[in-house]
């Protein structure tokens, strides 16, 4: 692998151009001026990219247009394989473990923290992109810059999970605006249930949509772990959250205990539920539907942020996307050049538009992308990466946080308490024990 330090960065392949660093607030942005940079691909380089299958068609269409542009510009052939996003994790893990597979993997959440030493150091590329595009949001660093120095992957963005609701059904239940706090949220669920138009959120082993359970424990001041990675599930804050879940659950639509990721989409689009948590894909599917009835529903669909709990600030969990260059690749420079090209505004802006709001950008510059304002219903999804907390918050990410997330410890705990199969205390104790096993690492 070619090492690439600051000296080489300045002396080597970089071509200087004007740029500004918008380092503001919590956003990470080095003080050095941005420069255009290219990486010199290896001779006869070919790339294989494994990425998650599109949730909205525009994503893959725009992505492939950019891939084609890259090939035309560099002559590097790029093969893109698509897999269901939940299947990418095991494949990426096997690739990392065996040292064979795709050169670049677009994966999710803290995958990179499972095998940081199997990934190419992309600090040079991330430094460059951060400087040029206003800085990375803090969640990007939490996931991909675990030691605070070295970047082990390039952030791609976040599939936000927000509240998706039917305006007419809320109005019919006497709810004029979507509640901003957890008390109002509970009252809304009660009213909707009373009207025969209940809401519901997944309580099964749904990899994406069960993420609302993290919002829940954070909203009440709880967390999986503290800053020192000490498991803190059996705490009064988490117990309060579980008591709340129990109350909320009685107003859920039937069957949520078994819901996997697609269930709420299907139920929502069929008009069987009035509110759920989801990406923008439900709205996009309705908007683009060939079925007149579903298309009509799009105008009635609205989005809102998760309500704020007693903790007094937003506590959002979303699905984070990363771009990893595997250390075994024969073409690390070509891979970096590919990711650089794809992340440049000329390409990334078009891709964001193609995603139709499904993916929230990782760099603050892209807040200005018109996709966030062209349709006001897209706007709530704009700041998902900005407000995101990793599931392993407030601790360090790594094997333990990824394992605890993958083993559904928090969703199972909430499901057990909500359904009454265990008391909140029993559920919390059990989850505490399970999580401690992972955090023993």
């Amino acid at each position, binding site marked *: 692998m070619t090492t690439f330090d600051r000296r080489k960065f300045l002396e080597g392949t970089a071509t200087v151009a004007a740029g500004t660093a918008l380092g503001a607030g919590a956003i990470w942005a080095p003080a050095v001026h941005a420069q255009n940079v290219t990486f010199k691909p290896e001779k006869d380089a070919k790339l294989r990219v494994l990425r998650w299958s599109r949730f909205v068609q525009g994503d893959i269409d725009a992505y492939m247009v950019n891939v084609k542009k890259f090939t035309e510009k560099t002559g590097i052939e790029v093969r893109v394989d698509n897999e269901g996003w939940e299947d990418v994790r095991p494949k990426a893990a096997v690739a990392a473990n065996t040292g064979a597979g795709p050169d670049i993997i677009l994966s999710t959440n803290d995958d990179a923290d499972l095998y940081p030493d199997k990934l190419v150091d992309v600090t040079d590329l991330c430094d460059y992109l951060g400087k040029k595009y206003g800085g990375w949001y803090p969640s990007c660093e939490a996931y991909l810059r675990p030691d605070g120095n070295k970047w082990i992957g390039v952030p791609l963005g976040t599939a936000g999970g927000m509240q998706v609701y039917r305006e007419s059904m809320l109005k019919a239940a006497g709810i004029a605006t979507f509640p901003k706090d957890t008390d109002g949220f509970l009252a809304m669920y009660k009213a909707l249930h009373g009207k025969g138009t209940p809401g519901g959120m997944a309580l099964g082993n749904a990899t994406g949509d069960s993420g609302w359970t993290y919002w829940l424990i954070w909203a009440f001041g709880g967390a999986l772990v503290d800053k020192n990675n000490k498991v803190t599930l059996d705490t009064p804050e988490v117990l309060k959250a579980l008591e709340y879940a129990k109350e909320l659950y009685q107003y859920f639509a039937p069957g949520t205990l078994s819901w996997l990721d697609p269930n709420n989409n299907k139920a929502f689009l069929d008009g069987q539920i009035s509110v759920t948590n989801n990406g923008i894909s439900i709205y996009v599917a309705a908007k683009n539907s060939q079925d007149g009835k579903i298309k009509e529903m799009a105008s009635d669909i609205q989005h809102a942020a998760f309500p704020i709990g007693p903790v007094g600030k937003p506590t959002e969990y979303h699905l984070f996307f990363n771009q990893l260059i595997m250390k075994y690749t024969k073409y690390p420079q070509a891979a970096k050049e590919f990711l650089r090209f794809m992340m440049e505004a000329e390409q990334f802006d078009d891709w964001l538009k193609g995603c139709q709001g499904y993916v929230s950008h990782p760099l603050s510059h892209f807040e200005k992308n018109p996709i966030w304002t062209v349709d006001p219903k897209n706007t709530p999804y704009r700041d998902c990466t900005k407000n995101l907390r990793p599931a392993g918050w407030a601790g360090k990410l790594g094997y333990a946080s990824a394992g605890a997330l993958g083993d559904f410890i928090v969703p199972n705990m909430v499901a*057990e308490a909500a359904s009454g199969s265990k008391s909140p205390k029993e559920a919390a104790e059990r989850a505490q024990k399970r999580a401690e096993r*992972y955090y023993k690492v």
Partner: protein
Amino acid sequence: MLQKLQDNRNALGLLFMLPAAVLLVLFLTYPLGLGTWLGFTDAKIGRTGEWIGLDNYQFLWNDSVTRLALFNTIFYTVVASILKFVLGLYLAILLNRNIRVKTFFRAVILLPYIVPTALSAIAFWWIYDAQFSIISWVLTKMGLIHNYIDFLGVPWNARLSTIAANVWRGVPFVAITLLAGLQTISPSYYEASAIDGATPWQQFRHVTLPLLTPIIAVVMTFSVLFTFTDFQLIYVITRGGPLNATHLMATLSFQRAIPGGALGEGAAISIAMVPFLLAAILFSYFGLQRRKWQQGGAD
């Protein structure tokens, strides 16, 4: 040298066995050995583990989710295997008779087995859906129920629903294999017993069953093994939920090892299945293949 080798029966025997031995070592012994080793380590994905002795097994023994998965697996295997055997035998006997368009029915019976498991699992996922279940829809239309049945949202409903899916898929294998066994029984036994005045039940009890037992032993051994290690149906339909009520050892092993990254613990769960599988095989061979019993003798 070559001539010498050709003349040596032992050497030739070894040579001919070599490809099979290589395949077995490469694809069976090595993975099993590696799995056993991993079970004694704290290996994570992308990180070599260190020897931790029985730590994984000690944790799993006290882990309520693993205990539940073990119970689920045994319950799933026992109930599904009994149902598959009873239904399979019934179908085999039915298809062994001279009924019209026998070949057509024999082909139809194989359909569930031909459909890829993942596809049939998706079909069952829809059939059991809390909002869209066709069963609930039909029962509602018939006025028999007023609310949709929560097939997968209630732990016991989910266990029984997944067993039903497994039985649907597994019956053809049992039925067709037993049918093959039935066809090897000479009609002269039935003629002789009929002349002696045996009733159909007596014929079944004293002719069919004893002569079919070796096939039953083999087919049920395979059926138990397949059921005990089932993964796809559960993974697609429930992913182990609700509340881990349908987690089998295989699905839990996968969840812990791959999405959870705990390769050592996942391997330990898999290896913990081996004694149960061995017990099933031993029961089949020493229990069902008793020669005396097959020949009408006492146990």
